[in-house]
């Protein structure tokens, strides 16, 4: 880590010289340590993996280091802590995973690396809280092999190994338990992984140097957060892509605040109770003056979160300088939307509902009036009544199929996506499944009673139409009756550009190769103003609808969807409904409609919204809640009178609300989702089985019916 060419300017040179002269420094060569050592810009006496550095400070070979919490606790008598700095995370940390081939609670044996003791103890505390004690083994060899060689196993990976494992193909099917996330849910506190410890005699000898060190760290880490190039440099040094590095630093906290101290104490107390320590240490702290002004450690995230730098980061991420502009055309469009919203508020909701019940078509402003009301039960009951008329009243359908995300390499840089990797970013978890892997997934799906796969992926520049043709033919040769519900309109458009063919030709060739139907992915909100903000390089509204029209004219079945709750105005949701209904009037090719809420976790768009930095943000409706979700689904059912099936989205809403949604206009619970990568990347992870669905549908008083992609009955329960 000697390439600190881009040195920090924060902190005084006098402090830097004092520290360099008086204190021998240790450095752990992990990415999470980078911002602090960047901040110091001081050459260490010792560097290496945590065990090396821990050993050096305990032996007195160095005076100070940021070291493992548990090792500090074991030698707390000889050590004094810096009061302002630590490494912690409140919740998911993204670099400490128990990767298991069964659910977390079912593990009987775990393999660990000797690199850090803190996480190994943390893992054991978390298992004991749940009343089980897996046997600990030393990991030698590849994690994937250990997991393959027996059932009920887990591998504990930390640091850069864990970063690499996330998304690596051989581990993709296993359960990743983020220990930081688990710790938060068990204790409600942040987890402190490492603390800055100074040897007691060094503090006594050079108290000013210890205080200066604390100052340098506080000021320098804050500067790191404001310096984009520094993050890029860190990413470069550790060979990961800047996007992943930024996401990682965003989760980490360096401020040693009140909650962090509580978290540390809770951890040490529990470790002591469980016999990992002889006593609970009473930490001593280096005395410092008041925290430096303007570098409050409370602004704890390493990456700056002020709106201006967030906007810059966002524009760089989505690859467009204009994505967040508010142009005169946008102004006019937004004004039109706001007028429409005023019209909606003036409508009589009861009148709209009665017209809908009488079988009359409602218009966009009517739909908007329903979206604006908080009368969920009224809207829900009308939607339910209409759904009972439209699909078999006593049945609720679901499908057993699998999401196969064949690649996560993508050129499009959508601001809402937590799943994709830039082409070539193999180290950051990028992958492209081979045909063999995909066919194996299909085989597993068939074995589990599945009838179809939803095959979607990134816009991978390496894949032309031939790749898909070969893949589809190979799948169909192995499994002739298996349904391929594949490639959303943006993927079709990407292939058409990549292979220099018309959309019609691409669709015809893929259909001939075995593609059965087209999913409605990438629809998001079909308003170009919105699409330019959230995904400036992605398919625009007319092109999206154009692909659908073409497919439908060719007789292919398709679906429609809406992902909302980001940068769109309420009126733009109504405009989306309108776009879908208009195309459906022409060709009746949409088999079903699904809506779901944007899952902001970890995405650039989520951060932008959180900071209040999206265009026209003051006009946006509040962040959707489950209530919004049910209301929106119900309005979709009422407005989309030319569509038969409405699917609830348990994947984003959870099974409780996803099931209750069956009384708010939905007649289908969607897929049990044998594999779901995209949503779980943003931190939303729900899992279900056929048994769960049969139970949940039955509990609602309906007959569970397994259907195929074209809504034909496979099995009635």
């Amino acid at each position: 880590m000697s390439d600190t060419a881009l040195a920090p300017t924060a902190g005084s040179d006098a402090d830097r010289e004092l520290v360099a002269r008086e204190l021998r420094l240790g450095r752990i060569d992990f990415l999470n340590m980078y911002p602090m050592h960047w901040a110091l810009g001081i050459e260490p006496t010792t560097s290496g993996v945590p065990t090396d550095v821990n050993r050096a400070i305990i032996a007195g070979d160095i005076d100070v280091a940021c070291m493992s919490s548990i090792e500090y606790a074991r030698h707390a008598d000889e050590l004094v802590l810096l009061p302002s700095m630590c490494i912690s995370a409140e919740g998911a940390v993204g670099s400490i995973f128990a990767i298991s081939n069964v659910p977390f609670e079912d593990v009987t044996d775990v393999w660990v690396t000797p690199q850090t003791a803190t996480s190994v103890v943390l893992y054991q505390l978390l298992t004991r809280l749940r009343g089980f004690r897996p046997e600990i083994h030393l990991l030698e060899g590849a994690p994937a092999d250990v997991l393959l060689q027996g059932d009920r196993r887990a591998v504990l990976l930390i640091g850069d190994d864990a970063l690499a494992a996330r998304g690596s193909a051989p581990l993709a099917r296993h359960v990743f338990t983020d220990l930081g996330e688990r710790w938060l849910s068990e204790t409600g506190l942040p987890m402190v992984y490492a603390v800055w410890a100074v040897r007691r005699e060094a503090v006594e000898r050079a108290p000013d140097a210890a205080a200066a060190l604390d100052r340098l760290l506080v000021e320098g880490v804050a500067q790191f957060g404001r310096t984009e190039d520094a993050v890029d440099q860190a990413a470069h040094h550790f060979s990961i892509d800047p996007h992943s590095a930024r996401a990682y630093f965003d989760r980490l906290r360096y401020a040693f605040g009140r909650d962090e101290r509580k978290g540390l104490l809770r951890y040490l107390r529990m470790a002591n109770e469980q016999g990992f320590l002889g006593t609970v240490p009473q930490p001593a702290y280096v005395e410092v003056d008041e925290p430096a002004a303007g570098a409050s450690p409370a602004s704890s995230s390493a990456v700056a979160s002020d709106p201006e730098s967030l906007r810059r980061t966002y524009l760089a991420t989505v690859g467009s300088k204009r994505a967040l502009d508010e142009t005169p055309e946008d102004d006019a469009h937004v004004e039109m939307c706001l007028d429409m919203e005023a019209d909606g508020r003036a409508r009589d909701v009861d009148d709209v509902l009665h017209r809908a019940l009488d079988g009359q078509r409602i218009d966009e402003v009517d739909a908007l009036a329903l979206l604006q009301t908080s009368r969920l039960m009224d809207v829900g009951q009308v939607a339910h009544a209409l759904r009972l008329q439209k699909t078999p009243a006593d049945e609720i359908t679901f499908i057993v199929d699998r999401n196969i995300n064949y690649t996560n390499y993508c050129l499009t840089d959508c601001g809402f996506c937590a799943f994709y990797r830039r082409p070539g970013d193999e180290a950051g978890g990028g992958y492209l499944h081979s045909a063999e892997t995909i066919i194996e997934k299909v085989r597993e799906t068939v074995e589990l009673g599945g009838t179809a796969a939803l095959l979607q992926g990134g816009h991978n520049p390496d894949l032309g139409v031939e790749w898909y043709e070969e893949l589809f033919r190979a799948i169909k040769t192995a499994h002739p009756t298996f349904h391929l519900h594949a490639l959303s309109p943006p993927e079709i458009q990407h292939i058409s550009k990549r292979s220099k063919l018309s959309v019609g030709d691409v669709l015809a060739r893929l259909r001939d190769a075995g593609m059965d139907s087209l999913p409605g992915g990438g629809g998001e909100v079909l308003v170009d103003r919105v699409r330019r903000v959230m995904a400036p390089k992605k398919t625009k509204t007319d092109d999206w609808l154009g692909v659908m029209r073409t497919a439908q004219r060719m007789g292919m079945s398709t679906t429609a969807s809406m992902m909302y709750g980001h940068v769109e105005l309420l009126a733009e949701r109504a405009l989306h409904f309108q776009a879908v209904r208009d195309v459906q009037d022409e060709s009746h090719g949409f088999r079903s409609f699904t809506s779901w809420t944007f899952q902001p976790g970890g995405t650039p768009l989520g951060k932008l919204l959180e900071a209040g930095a999206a265009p026209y943000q003051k006009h946006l409706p509040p962040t959707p809640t489950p209530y919004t979700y049910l209301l929106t689904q119900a309005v979709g059912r009422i407005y989309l009178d030319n569509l038969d099936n409405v699917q609830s989205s348990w994947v984003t809403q959870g099974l409780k609300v996803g099931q209750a949604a069956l009384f708010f206009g939905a007649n289908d619970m969607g897929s049990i989702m044998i594999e779901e990568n995209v949503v779980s990347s943003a931190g939303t992870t729900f899992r279900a089985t056929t048994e769960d669905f049969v139970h949940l549908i039955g509990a609602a008083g309906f007959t569970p019916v397994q259907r195929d992609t074209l809504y034909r009955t496979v099995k009635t329960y």
Partner: protein
Amino acid sequence: MSDTTTAPVDRQIETIRRLVQDDALLPLVEPVLAGERLSFDDGLTLIESTDLLTVGRLADLRRRALHGDEVFFNHNRHINHTNICRIKCRFCAFSRTQATHDGAYAFSHDDMVEQALEAAELGVTEIHVVGGEHPDITYEWYIELVRRMHQAVPQIHLKMWTASEIRHLGRLGGGLSDTQVLQDLVDAGLGSMPGGGAEVFSQRVRDLVCRGKDTAEEWLEVHRRAHEVGVKTNCTMLYGHVETLEERIDHLERLRELQDESLATRATFEQTGVLPDVNRTGTVGAFQCFIPLAFHPENTVFARRGWAFTAGSDDLRMVAVSRLMLDNIPNVKAYWVMISPELAQVALHFGANDVDGTVMVERIVHMAGAKTQQETQQEKLVTLIQGAGRIPVERDTVYNELRRWEPQSPAGAR
């Protein structure tokens, strides 16, 4: 402006009549509007109906008549003083029967006081303490615990121990009466009692799931005595395991009967000024709130038998039917820790007017695998309540208003 939380009542009735899917519900509309008492059979009609939204709407009419648009929450902390328990309830993933078992723990007075002080620092107004029935703790230990906690945090309301634990204390004290135990606890600083341990009153069910625990009559008797002594209590039902729908309605009826008794005693006192002999507090208690508790099979013997978690629709109808049947219990809670914050929000339109509190460290539920985060900020609860078009009101344990969030402008920017 059409954007009100709920339509006028007459419009709602019109909508109910027009949209009802289950005609068996129609005869209940008038009685519900008039606030008349529903019978056991009415309860069965409601709970057996697949017309969930009409049932919910009826419950919402009652809720609205009682509470308008207000929804309560509080700042509370749960502490489970021990998980060592003489009973082995089969729905419990929390207990250890021996102190030597993995994960077994028992807090000392000092531990408890420390946690109470921590809670005070967080601005908590209520500490909720329940735990295992540890065979080796003395009666004096319990009384002293209440005293020490009350001395340490006199400003915090101590809501402690279920009926089953009160009985356990009586036995530890060498056969003390419920009344005696309750009086000693009140003298030491007890504020009120939680409603846990009611499970399902049917003896058939209790024999199956919690043999060895107190009977329904014993549970009810303790609460009867508590009310008499002047202790307010809550009540619960743990549903979603082996009980039938009839047994659920029966449970609600029995709670309603006891509440009638206690309210009658209170009315007598208010009219005549005469308190029960045993009462030294100067008030008569009653049930404040009913909390339907969804059973969590994870980590219990039931999980291994393929038992499923309760469906969202079952949780919602349970809230609704409780609201409708329990006409004499003021509050019905959608306990977000059990049914998820998401569904708790929806339940606010199915008769619930309380979502419980910020709930720090709820060990019993979380060991059974409830996936909700233990610590939810007030902000989240406020957002949840406002998102349902309701007015958040922070309350204390006995339902005094502490703070309210007035409705926002409908534009509601993020």
